[in-house]
């Protein structure tokens, strides 16, 4: 019986994913022996997770009353893995009134790395659908000010609804292109969770790599370079920029940071998340050498943490 259950669980936790040949080649080269583990993890369904909205409650008793098996995420306060969900959490009263939000664990991290305080003026340059903005508001206790921007008018509706439901009262929502976003004041902190090729999302969306190609990655990289240059321009001296993507391609991560460091005087700050297994940012890839500071960035591999793949870099503007 136990053997049957193990086989059953393994079968139903596996998903049929599409991994393009060039993608496989790329990560075989980058990860060498680890690549098999990485590809295997891509086929495993992602464990759902949620974060409690501390603007509304700190009490998790409502979770205990649901018929679900949950486990605390060790490295994020108020975040939980949903191990086995019997009745849907997505349509409960608690979800309707914003006591929590379903969100992938990796994508919660950039807001905590930015860690704004209650007096900061913060820009979330590519904010939709708003889950990261809502966490920023929680960290700031709904004080200070967040400008939550997105270029996409359709996604803006989702952003607005998320902020309303979560009870966020310190936010102005704007609709500008992130590349040309302009402001008559500078920001203390900026979050740039850049649009990317979404390689890290494959466990959530098995067809995430349908559009993937080397040229697609390069086009995202070009866009990200334009976004990061504008973001740094909007930052105060000594201000902090957190750059993140849900992708693992060095072209969209280290290469973008290297591009910035060549143009602006910035330093990269260490990121310390106790309990999370992170690789350092690459300083060399495909024959190219990147600024050694970039090793302070973190790469989150799905096969090492059983969460979505992610890249996060914390940058301080020197002048």
């Amino acid at each position, binding site marked *: 019986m136990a053997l049957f259950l193990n086989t059953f669980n393994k079968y139903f936790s596996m998903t049929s994913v599409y991994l393009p040949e060039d993608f496989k080649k790329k990560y075989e080269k980058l990860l060498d022996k680890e690549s098999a583990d990485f590809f295997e993890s891509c086929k495993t369904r992602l464990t759902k997770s949620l974060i409690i909205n501390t603007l509304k409650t700190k009490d998790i008793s409502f979770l205990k009353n649901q018929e679900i098996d949950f486990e605390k995420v060790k490295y994020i306060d108020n975040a939980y893995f949903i191990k086995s969900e019997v009745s849907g959490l997505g349509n409960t*009263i608690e979800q309707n009134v914003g006591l929590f939000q379903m969100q992938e664990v990796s994508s919660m991290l950039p807001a905590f790395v930015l860690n704004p305080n209650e007096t900061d003026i913060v820009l979330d340059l590519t904010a939709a659908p708003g889950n990261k903005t809502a966490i920023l508001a929680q960290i700031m206790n709904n004080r200070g000010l967040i400008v939550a921007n997105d270029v996409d008018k359709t996604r803006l509706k989702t952003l607005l*609804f998320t902020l*309303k439901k979560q009870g966020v009262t310190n*936010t*102005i929502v704007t609709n500008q292109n992130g590349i040309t976003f302009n402001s008559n004041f500078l920001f203390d902190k900026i979050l740039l969770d850049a649009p990317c090729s979404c390689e890290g999302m494959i466990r959530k969306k098995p067809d995430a790599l349908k559009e993937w190609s080397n040229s697609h990655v390069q086009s995202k990289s070009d866009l990200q370079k334009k976004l990061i240059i504008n973001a740094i321009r909007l930052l105060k001296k000594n201000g902090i920029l957190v750059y993140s993507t849900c992708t693992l391609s060095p072209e969209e991560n280290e290469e973008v940071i290297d591009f910035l460091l060549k143009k602006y005087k910035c330093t990269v700050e260490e990121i310390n998340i106790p309990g999370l297994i992170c690789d350092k940012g690459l300083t060399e890839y495909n024959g190219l050498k990147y600024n050694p500071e970039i090793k302070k960035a973190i790469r989150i591999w799905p096969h090492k943490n059983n969460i979505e793949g992610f890249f996060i870099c914390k940058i301080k503007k020197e002048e």
Partner: protein
Amino acid sequence: MTKLLDLKTKTKIINYLNSRFGIDKSFLENYMYIIKGNSVSVVISDKKEIIQKMINSNFVKNIGIEIFSNYKDYVPSSLGFGIFKNSQILNNFVNLDRTQANNYFKGKEINTNDIKTKNLLSSGYVVCIYNNQIIGTAKYIKEETKILPNLSFVNEKIK
């Protein structure tokens, strides 16, 4: 056009929230009040100057959170009232059980005689609470002993 609410109307709104629901005036004074059409939103006033700078920008799509979809008739936004804690609501509220709360989200009217804990002073909008959380607002009709869920929440979801 989005603009700061004039002092007279702001005071009127604060007085209404205080007299109808018992919300403390000093808490309500922490916010800036923004008007767009008939809708009134609140935003925390920590960065007043910046907000004033941005208010007329074409790029600004929303400021803070809407608390009245129609301030002239004091029609509250169910989601917006989520910024208050249940302990701040002293008058005109109902404490729903789980079945009643589920019915609320389905838009079903609820007979006030079936509600165990309530404080209903007069007909008009009331705050609905479930498990110590504000889940929305409803229209109370005293003569008919019923509350009708304020469905703006559901409509917002559908938009």
